[in-house]
């Protein structure tokens, strides 16, 4: 109602005037009444007295009028706020402790939420992202054709019962593009992959993505400079053009407008730069950083043989469509699914049996394009849980402090109740104070959070395989989250003390002998305080247990026997084909590198292989093994190795011989590992046996030696049957065994590679330990942060315990004095206090242990050779809690032993 709003607003903004009017109105009434009494013959004094008696409490009437005008909530909030600020300013120590505690709790939440927001929640920075869908198929089995992917969609390890992927052939994409009745636009992309960029100073590596000509139009991304790619650029024979990412343009080209029209060489092919994208377009798939885009029709010129357009067996493109307005996802799905099933299950080449039940799904692009979410979803959820626990600890801590303070303010509350304040007004006042505190804490926390966020971002980037795109700016969602957390926190820790504060017994306090009569309420308050401490200890125990389990996991993972010497090993990758080297030149180039690097001082030995061990990747083939009765093929991991590989890696020879210079790619001799023999050739002499693919053209390898097992992909990999063949051609990982720490030789090794071929970029130079650290990233991330949070939680719990016991000692001064006077020993007094503390810690540890048993199950996938219920970890955590608890108790206990009986007995 309009009058309602007007009067409320007028009450709020013209408050002074409204108050004066109210005074005038009531005074007029009193005067009229007094006149009436005087007309009836009363004296003026008597008349005024009678008026006051009639009226009762003038302040009460005014308050009721204010209520009736609906001003009270807003206005009294202003009063409460001003009063709250004054009260808190009068207790700076208390206020500071509370704000710092809350700032740590809320800041940690904001920091982790910023990451969650950047990786999981933020909308795609393109036009109307909610209209975009990504095409994802699933079936019971993988089709019998080549599938390549760049990890854009949900990762699905190849397994026997289901297959899911976003990779589609170009031929199908062409068909999908024609379905304009359901999709207004469709685009396809693959990548990014590393491209060797020259023509702009020294050769560098750029993350280049091959995309359809419709890519930018479909996304609604405009150029900041020049133009984006157009459908015409996809034509066969169209000029080779490239579009730069805005940030890359700033970074690599200094933001110069002169780049338009400039020629660069990508993988030894010339491209003309035609445009730069708008700065808002920072990413498509979460975490993926792309430096430049070229048409997918150029892919074969870039050495990307997997990117053939005409072959329907080659599935390599992620397809994203924009729904026609008014067309639902289900309608579009029905149309496209039909197309997909027809193209793959019927026609000339069938990819599936009928029983494989292949079908196509349309996922919202926001959910379907997952990228680094595949890797980080789980640890982020864990960390969000952990910071939630930390926030609970800080709430419990602050609630404890507020409770103690409420006791100290009982007299104040009694006075206010006596003056006629309603209990709900007092509750509101106390809640306003706690909200004030929580918002101050949140503001401080929000200032601290960016420190944590940048630290985390650096840790993420340092351990990423590829350049990582993380947009960590604080947006409205993060602010809203922080505000909501502050609100919930303020009410959470304020509600119990507020109700307790409003229930102050009136008379006893005003009489001044509160200590004797309100013992009952104090006992309650103490038990609530104790419960809060127990809660803090329990929650700390949960976080600490999690941290302990992960630390043990890391120790276990670092202690495992890799089967080769992981120390003092420097690794770098080369891909000479990208720099224009022909296949036949490559072995000579590698031999040259090997010889020159091995002459460097500090280098013990050098070799290379098609892949580095314990670096995340592996390759495998299904093969048949001689003498095995069953006809089925078995999986064999394969690695092509250069000369001197096994001595360099320090993988031992168990029987037979290693490769020598007579073994080449064409002599079909191979080495196998111990697991190969144990699993496939048990009880037989492996030397001289053969294995290989079942195609008549596949080489059959003769086993000439057996070497020890080595971990292939990751530290968690089981030892698997592996075959080693002599190196043929392609990109490699060089392995340099050094005497000094390997990082010290990085520059020298790089110089050698540059001196052999200045156009050949060194890719991903790292030590073996770096690689292992990167593989253990999730474990390390969660272990580190849980450790940090556990320390924070423990500190808060100890402060809470200390605060509670200090308060208790000061409250029981008189009792302790009497005990001392009656001859109690200092030890007895000491243990009296400490025993209470230990009781609380023990209760907390038991409750926390129970909660940890339930919660640490979330960690199972991160743990290695330690169970979530590992008794050792639980015992250790409980021990740490107990020791810290005793420390926290000892100071108040010491103070108790120093109580002077004479002072104590006089003090009340």
């Amino acid at each position, binding site marked *: 109602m309009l009058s309602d709003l007007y009067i409320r607003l007028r009450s709020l903004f013209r408050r002074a005037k409204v108050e004066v009017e109210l005074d005038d109105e009531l005074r007029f009434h009193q005067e009229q*009444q007094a006149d009436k009494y005087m007309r009836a013959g009363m004296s003026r004094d008597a008349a005024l007295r009678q008026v006051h008696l009639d009226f009762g409490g003038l302040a009460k009437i005014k308050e009721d*009028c204010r209520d*009736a005008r609906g001003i009270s909530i807003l206005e009294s909030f202003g009063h409460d706020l001003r009063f709250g600020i004054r009260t808190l300013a009068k207790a700076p120590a208390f206020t500071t402790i509370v704000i710092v505690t809350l700032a740590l709790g809320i800041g940690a939440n904001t920091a982790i939420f910023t990451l969650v927001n950047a990786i999981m929640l933020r909308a795609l920075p393109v036009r109307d992202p909610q209209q975009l869908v990504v095409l994802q198929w699933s079936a019971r089995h993988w089709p019998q054709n080549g599938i390549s992917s760049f990890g854009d969609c949900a990762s699905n390890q190849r397994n026997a019962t289901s297959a899911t992927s976003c990779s589609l052939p170009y031929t199908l994409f062409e068909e999908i593009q024609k379905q304009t009745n359901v999709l207004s636009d469709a685009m396809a992309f693959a990548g990014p992959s590393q491209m060797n960029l020259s023509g702009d100073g020294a050769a560098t590596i750029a993350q280049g993505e091959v995309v359809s000509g419709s890519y930018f139009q479909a996304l609604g991304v405009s150029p900041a400079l020049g133009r984006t790619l157009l459908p015409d650029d996809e034509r066969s024979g169209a000029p080779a053009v490239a579009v730069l990412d805005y940030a890359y343009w700033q970074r690599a080209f200094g933001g110069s407008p002169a780049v338009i029209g400039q020629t660069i060489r990508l993988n030894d092919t010339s491209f003309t730069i035609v445009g730069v994208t708008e700065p808002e377009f920072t990413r498509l798939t979460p975490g993926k950083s792309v430096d430049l885009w070229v048409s997918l029709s150029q892919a074969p010129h870039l050495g990307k043989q997997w990117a053939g357009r005409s072959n329907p067996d080659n599935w390599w493109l992620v397809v994203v469509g924009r729904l026609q307005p008014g067309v639902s996802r289900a309608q579009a799905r029905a149309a496209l699914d039909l197309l997909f099933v027809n193209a793959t299950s019927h026609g000339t080449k069938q990819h599936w049996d009928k029983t494989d039940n292949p079908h196509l799904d349309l996922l919202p692009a926001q959910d379907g394009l997952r990228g680094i979410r595949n890797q980080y979803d789980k640890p982020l959820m864990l960390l969000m849980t952990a910071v939630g626990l930390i926030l609970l600890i800080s709430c419990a801590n602050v609630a404890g402090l507020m409770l103690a303070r409420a006791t100290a303010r009982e007299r104040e509350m009694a006075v206010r109740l006596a003056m006629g304040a309603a209990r709900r007004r007092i509750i509101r006042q106390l809640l306003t104070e706690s909200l004030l505190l929580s918002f101050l804490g949140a503001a401080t926390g929000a200032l601290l959070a960016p420190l944590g966020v940048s630290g985390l971002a650096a840790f993420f980037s340092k351990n990423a395989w590829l350049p990582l795109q993380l947009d960590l700016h604080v947006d409205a969602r993060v602010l809203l989250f922080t505000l909501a957390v502050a609100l919930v926190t303020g009410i959470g820790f304020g509600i119990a003390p507020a109700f307790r504060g409003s229930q102050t017994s009136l008379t006893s306090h005003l009489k001044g002998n509160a200590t004797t009569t309100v013992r009952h309420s104090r006992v309650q308050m103490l038990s609530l305080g104790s419960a809060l401490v127990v809660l803090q200890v329990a929650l700390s125990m949960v976080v600490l247990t999690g941290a302990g389990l992960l630390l043990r996991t890391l120790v276990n993972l670092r202690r495992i026997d890799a089967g080769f010497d992981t120390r003092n090993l420097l690794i770098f990758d080369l891909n000479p084909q990208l720099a224009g080297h022909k296949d036949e030149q490559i072995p000579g180039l590698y031999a040259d590198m090997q010889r020159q690097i091995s002459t460097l001082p500090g280098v013990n030995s050098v070799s290379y292989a098609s892949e580095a061990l314990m670096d995340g990747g592996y390759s495998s083939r299904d093969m048949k093994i001689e003498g095995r009765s069953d006809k089925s093929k078995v999986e064999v991991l394969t690695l092509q190795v250069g000369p001197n590989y096994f001595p360099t890696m320090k993988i031992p020879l168990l029987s037979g011989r290693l490769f020598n210079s007579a073994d080449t790619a064409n002599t079909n001799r191979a080495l196998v590992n111990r697991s190969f023999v144990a699993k496939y050739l048990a009880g037989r002499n492996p030397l001289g046996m053969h294995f290989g693919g079942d195609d008549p053209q596949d080489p059959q390898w003769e086993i000439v030696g057996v070497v020890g097992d080595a971990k292939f992909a990751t530290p968690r990999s089981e030892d698997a049957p592996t075959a080693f063949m002599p190196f043929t051609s392609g990109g490699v990982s060089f392995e340099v065994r050094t005497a000094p720490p390997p990082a010290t030789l990085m520059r020298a090794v790089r110089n050698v590679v540059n001196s052999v071929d200045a156009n050949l970029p060194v890719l991903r130079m790292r030590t073996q330990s770096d690689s292992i650290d990167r593989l253990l990233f999730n474990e390390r991330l969660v272990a580190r942060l849980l450790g940090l949070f556990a320390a924070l939680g423990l500190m808060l719990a100890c402060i809470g315990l200390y605060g509670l016991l200090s308060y208790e000692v000061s409250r029981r001064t008189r009792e302790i004095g009497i005990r001392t006077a009656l001859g109690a020993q200092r030890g007895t007094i000491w243990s009296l206090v400490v025993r209470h503390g230990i009781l609380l810690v023990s209760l907390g540890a038991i409750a926390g242990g129970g909660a940890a048993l339930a919660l640490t199950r979330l960690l199972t996938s991160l743990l290695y050779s330690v169970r979530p219920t590992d008794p050792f970890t639980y015992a250790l955590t409980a021990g740490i809690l107990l020791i810290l608890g005793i420390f926290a108790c000892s100071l108040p206990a010491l103070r108790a032993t120093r109580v002077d009986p004479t002072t104590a007995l006089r003090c009340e």
Partner: protein
Amino acid sequence: MMPERIDLPQGTLDILILRTLSLGPQHGWAISERVQQISDDVLRIQQGSLYPALHRLERQGWIKAKWGASENNRRAKFYELTRTGQKQLATEQDAWEKLTAAVGQVLRAV
């Protein structure tokens, strides 16, 4: 001898105020005097409830206030009935009469 006074039943204050104001704009004191007079001193409105009620009715938009000069030429706040207030009065009066008639009927019949 003062006549015996009756406490106002819940909810009747509003209708008394609205009815009094239907005769013309009045200030608060005059409203309470008028009710007291017309009811032959039986009904007496407490100041503690009169003013909050006036402010509440103003907020509801049934009455509006303006400052003017009183009969003895003092500045006073006058309340008058708005159009919605008149409708409200009609509704409430109707409801009240039905209620009292019904209650009276029951009391007489038993």
